[in-house]
């Protein structure tokens, strides 16, 4: 019944934030961040389990580790960027949030560059000169 716990936590935190917002908005913001982090941390264990299973499968099937690593890195970047952007947006700084998202996107694209290079190089090699 983890879901009940998470929802209960979220509701309680929401009420507390509402109470605090009147007097000290800064504290309300910190409280919201804190709650978000706690919920995420309580879930990441499960994600890690799923990933372990997938990783083991991939290792058994001899999937190139480059692929696996790249995928995992992308997901990690997406999570961190998303988290930062949301917190920032909560605080009312939409522009900073979109910059964070931009950074996340660019870093993901950078991860893709070696792959693209590989494909293009091979294609160029295929083509008769």
């Amino acid at each position, binding site marked *: 019944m983890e879901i009940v716990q998470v929802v209960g936590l979220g509701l309680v935190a929401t009420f507390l934030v509402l109470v605090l917002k009147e007097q000290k908005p800064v504290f309300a913001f910190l409280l919201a961040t804190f709650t978000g982090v706690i919920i995420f941390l309580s879930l990441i264990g499960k*994600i890690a389990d*799923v990933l372990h299973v*997938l990783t083991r*499968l*991939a290792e058994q*099937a*001899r*999937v*190139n580790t480059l*692929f*696996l690593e*790249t*995928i995992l890195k*992308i*997901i990690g970047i*997406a*999570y961190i*960027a*998303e*988290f930062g*952007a*949301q917190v920032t947006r909560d605080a009312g700084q939409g522009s900073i949030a979109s910059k964070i*998202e931009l950074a*996340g*996107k660019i870093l*993901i*694209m950078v*991860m*893709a560059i070696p*792959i*693209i290079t*590989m*494909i293009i190089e*091979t294609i160029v*090699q*295929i083509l008769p000169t």
Partner: protein
Amino acid sequence: MFELLNGWLKQIIILVLLATFMDLLLPNNAMDRYVKLVMGLLIILAILSPIFQLIRQDLDLTSLSDQQLEGSGRENLSSVKAIKQKGEQLTETQNRLIHEQAEQRMAATLRKGVEKRFPVEVIQSEVKTKGKEEARIEGVHLVVRRAADKGGEEAVDPVDPVDPVDIGMDSESRNKEDHQKDEPSSEQRALSRRIVQYVEETWKLPPEQIKVEVEDG
């Protein structure tokens, strides 16, 4: 050929599965398109990988310099097994070295102990072990000579050199025969028996693993 196909298919299936899962795991949809693009590229790469290999082989035929490059590349690819083998070899060597070292140490300890206790000079001491992780002592071989003067146990005076003490797996009787062959002097036999007893007690070994030879001074 079939195996190759098998591996290829497995790889693609796992990769697609992984990509789907990751897609579901992703937080919001802001990053969605980017992540999907990269995953798509990865899957394309996985699908194309055998074709790449084929093409590279063709290239090998066309140009020599390329051949060398590609060859080395493929060697690198296939070298995981080789590396593993090498690693195993290294481990074995290391184990063997450790064993040897342990044997030498034990032999040295044995020599010291016997020389201290008995008025003899140990000419040769050998310890054999077997077993991988936890080595067991398989046999002890000692050659001693009575130190010059005496055979007494109180080694205050120099002792007759004790002759080779041979402690082996084979039954004690053989050792005895060995000694007897030389010179079955009762003194020597007594000495060797005492040494055997000593080694037996201090090292907790069954007597048949201990071989002591006594040489005459």
